[in-house]
């Protein structure tokens, strides 16, 4: 009590300075309260809600697992050959619409697709089967001789 009384006996300009300082500090914390997002610091020096926001985007590629739900026979065949590392959508293109509505068919594929990976290129690794598309075969379709779903077999 004695100390409090002594504080109020201080010169008025000092009391005003102290009150001003307290006011500024209060303003700082009030402003900070409104400017810093609520989830800031939840996990670290960032907005915790950002994780949810980034995760809320919808996937574009359906993924091999959703193809296998219906096309397991193709997948078993694929798993036996050299194309076992391929995902369905690697060749057939984005399949989300087809997964959601099987009536929507995926487009037919053409030769450029095989050549995309199997055209000879000095930068490509040696283990990959490579061909020169200009002199490998003069016919139209790769599938005349090769089976894309089981490339080790002959049709």
């Amino acid at each position: 009590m004695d100390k409090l009384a002594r504080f109020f006996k201080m010169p008025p300009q000092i009391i005003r300075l102290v009150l001003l300082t307290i006011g500024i500090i209060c303003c700082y914390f009030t402003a900070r309260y409104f400017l810093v997002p609520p989830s800031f610091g939840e996990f670290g020096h960032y907005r915790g809600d950002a994780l949810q926001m980034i995760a809320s985007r919808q996937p574009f590629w359906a993924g091999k697992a959703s193809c296998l739900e219906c096309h397991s026979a193709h997948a078993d065949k694929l798993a036996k050959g050299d194309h076992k590392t391929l995902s369905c959508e690697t060749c057939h293109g984005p399949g989300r619409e087809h997964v959601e509505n099987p009536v929507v068919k995926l487009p037919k594929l053409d030769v450029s697709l095989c050549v995309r990976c199997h055209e000879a290129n000095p930068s490509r690794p040696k283990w990959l089967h490579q061909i020169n598309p200009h002199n490998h075969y003069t016919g139209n379709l790769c599938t005349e001789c090769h089976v894309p779903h089981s490339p080790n077999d002959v049709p």
Partner: protein
Amino acid sequence: MSENMTRRSVLKNLAGIVGGILAMPAARTCKAAVQNVLASSGAPKGYDPFQHKWLMALDVDRCIGCGLCVEACKAENSVPDGDFRTWIERYVITKADPASGKSRGETFVDSPNGGIGGFKTSLIPKEDILKSFFVPKMCNLCEKSPCSQVCPVGATFESPDGVVLVDKNYCIGCGFCIQACPYGCRFLNPTTHTADKCTLCYHRITRGLKPACVEICPSQARIFGDLKNPVPNDPLQAFIANNKVERLKQNLGTNPRVGYAGLDEEVR
């Protein structure tokens, strides 16, 4: 001083201010809860970022330079033309002139349109090439990421599950992080005017899917896994066990997490 400023009115006003300030956190919590119910319908539920640690590894000897991963990434994440979250580089090292006494000639690196459409033309004739290979590049998922250290607003960060992400609502587009990244993995998105980068397809991995580039890669040059939840015959664990794994620019102290197998000394 007005005449009606009594002790009672001052106390009333003071009580109102204090009450208002005390009620604010409760109101904010309610607002956040309501927003969560209304807005989080798109986000996967029940995902705990502390239960996972995602990692990607890249096998240079498996990359065939088809560029399908770059296209898959663009389609998945609406990456603008001319910018890349991942890209393929072609390294061509020429034969040395025997008179020079050197082990290798010059090194040429190119990445036409990030590798989209594949690598068709080669500027160097095959007989002059000592060796050549493709290197997929992407965010190196640094433990001490320089990009998040320089961000002045805390809009980029290392998430608990090991991904470096950008909070585009709070990014001010200053571009410090783009200059800070020693791997060149960031760009300023021309539509959002915020920093953009590989998220390891955060919206896919939180749903149990693989990142788009891993899903589409035909040759398993990209290996993806969860270090905290290894599956039986985990491809990532097998990759680390069976290869001599290196990381890019280790001397910079950024502690990159992405591992590379089959790197040549020329790859930076």
